[in-house]
């Protein structure tokens, strides 16, 4: 019988919580539940480091290491090799990092990990800016988004993480969203079984940084998927499959309008972003059907 007084449910400790409406908590609770206790996690400083806990108290019930911002993939590589050198091929070593720690400062060590074929599952929860330090822009921030370091709106398109992962020809990588938890859990399960590197790119809505009501996280993510701004797909043994096909893409404006970070984009900019998003979507559809 589950006892609330002594045990929290799942692998996150009692009393640990992210900001209201944050997608990250939903992601990590589901990820850890699927992976189970035979898991070692590397978390860099950033929003998710709160799960490492504070002082003598840990925020999760599995083994883990809080790394530095740029080397989650390297720590995970070393841990995985250390286990293997002692005959432990069963513990899943994962990294759980944000977009800054992955696509900016951590890209080099991630590339090394993927190229060497390390037995590591790398999970990037992507809230599209440096939220922990105060909403500064990252290479994962979308075109037009206002952040504290792109006050006039970002001039560049979002960096393509899965494109980079696929270029390394790793056995498995996929995108996921909290709007479809069964799909997310299925992908975590698949990634767990992979021998070699795997990567999950999960959209992580941030009410504080994106500027929307904390009750709207799921709605925002649903509109992201429906408009093609966040495409759910997976790449497995060289084959790309679209997970959620959208019959007719919704106008991108439906997604943008919910969030203050896109306030101030003019019609031309919205058209530019929409054209880019659709082009990306159709390219993926073409690859999936080729």
């Amino acid at each position, binding site marked *: 019988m589950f006892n609330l007084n002594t045990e929290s449910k799942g692998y996150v400790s009692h009393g640990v919580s992210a900001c209201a409406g944050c997608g990250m908590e939903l992601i990590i609770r589901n990820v850890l539940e699927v992976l189970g*206790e*035979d*898991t*070692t996690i*590397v978390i860099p400083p950033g929003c998710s*480091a709160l799960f*490492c*806990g*504070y*002082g003598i108290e*840990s*925020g*999760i*019930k*599995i*083994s*883990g*290491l*809080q*790394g*530095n911002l*740029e*080397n989650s*993939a*390297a*720590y*995970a*590589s*070393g*841990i995985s*090799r*250390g*286990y*293997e*050198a*002692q005959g432990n091929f069963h*513990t899943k070593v994962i990294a759980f990092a944000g977009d800054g720690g992955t696509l900016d400062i951590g890209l*080099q*060590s991630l*590339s*090394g990990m993927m*190229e*060497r074929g390390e037995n590591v599952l790398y999970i990037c929860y992507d809230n599209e800016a440096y939220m922990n330090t105060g909403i500064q822009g990252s290479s994962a921030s979308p075109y037009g988004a206002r952040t504290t370091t792109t006050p006039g709106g970002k001039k560049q398109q979002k960096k393509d993480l899965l494109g980079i992962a696929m270029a390394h020809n790793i056995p498995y990588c996929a995108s996921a969203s909290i709007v479809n938890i069964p799909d997310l859990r299925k992908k975590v399960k698949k990634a767990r079984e992979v021998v070699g590197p795997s990567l999950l790119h999960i959209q992580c809505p941030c009410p504080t940084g994106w500027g929307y009501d904390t009750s709207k996280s799921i709605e925002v993510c649903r509109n992201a998927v429906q408009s093609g701004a966040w495409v759910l797909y997976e790449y497995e043994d060289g084959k790309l499959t679209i997970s959620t096909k959208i019959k007719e893409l919704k106008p991108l404006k439906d997604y943008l309008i919910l969030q203050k970070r896109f306030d101030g984009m003019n019609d031309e900019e919205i058209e530019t972003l929409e054209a880019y998003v659709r082009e990306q979507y159709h390219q993926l559809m073409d690859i999936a059907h080729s």
Partner: protein
Amino acid sequence: MAHYKMLDGNTACVEAMKMSRVKVISAYPITPQSTIAEKLSDLVAKEELDASYIRVESEHSAMSCAIGAQLTGVRTATATASVGLALMHEVLNVASGLRVPIVMPVVNRSLASPWSLWCDHQDSMAERDSGWIQLYCENVQDVYDTMLMSYRIAEHPDVLTPVMVCLDGFFLSHSMQKLVVAEQVEVDEFVGEYTVNNLKLDPADPIVINNLTGSNEITEMKYQQAVGFEKAKKVMQDVFAEFGRKFGRQKSLVEGYRTEDAEAVIISLGSMSGTIKHVVNELREKGYKVGIVKIVSFRPFPAAELKEVIGTIKKVAVIDRTTGFGGQGAPLWMETRAALNQNVLVKNYIAGLAGRDIHTGTIEKVFFDILASEEESEKPIWIDCDTENAMKIREVYKYV
């Protein structure tokens, strides 16, 4: 039985790592360390060493992988030099702060800029406060011996502090010398298997390592590291003594040579010490009362032991193979000056930067200067620098 081999300093490191049965290796090539990375991968490929080799994409990842792997409970190996060590800076502090006792050869090389491939101590001196023990080697035998002893020192429960084994680039790393190599069984007995005495990543007994820690605890945790350094001195003396008994070669934290009745001595680090001993012998024959005091352990700095070795000697010349910009002197001088009484004259000499040879002439100049000195100088003396023309070379000239 132990046997003789002809090895260069890098290969001596590899020999010691192999015989200490490292299990995970992460290395990134950099001159003059590269042959360490190559030879280790070769041993793994030929199955002469049962280890996992991680061909990392940077020195930062080399150290990160080593930390991650060693936290699971295995002895690891990596090595670096120069800007590679500088790139590791951030995670060097993680290794020491988490008390992960990694032993790492640092093949001393100048730091950019300007680019230089050659030896000085700027790289390791820049890391003197990173919480690593630093031992400096005189010759290839010393490299091999120091490596073996370093595992014992670093991993000792009283110490739990990583060790840099510093060997001068090219002067030692690429210099072939005859040395005595121990038998595997002797090394197994001396170094022993790796056991974790502190933090461990273990899914069966889960903890989260290295989380955010408050100011209510960090001062005390740093104090623990300081105590580790304090205790390291005793542990080193014990390990040196045991090594001496087993292998017949003696070592101490500070080593005096012909210091008896000396009027002046040079304080040295690393490979220059051999040349200085040679000059001391020559000058002694001519009637000069000179000697040399070699610092083996720069971190922890053996101040009390140094004071004892100096005894009643009144003139001390400190050769720093690094610049010490903006300070009253370079690092070795600062430590020495702080360790000795005010009635001892301690002068600082900068020499041997970026591979400039510290030859017999340079050492004689230092001895003659210190013998003739009646007071300390306000700033270091750049003894082998063409100070008269220095400001006229290259771009500096245009703006001065």
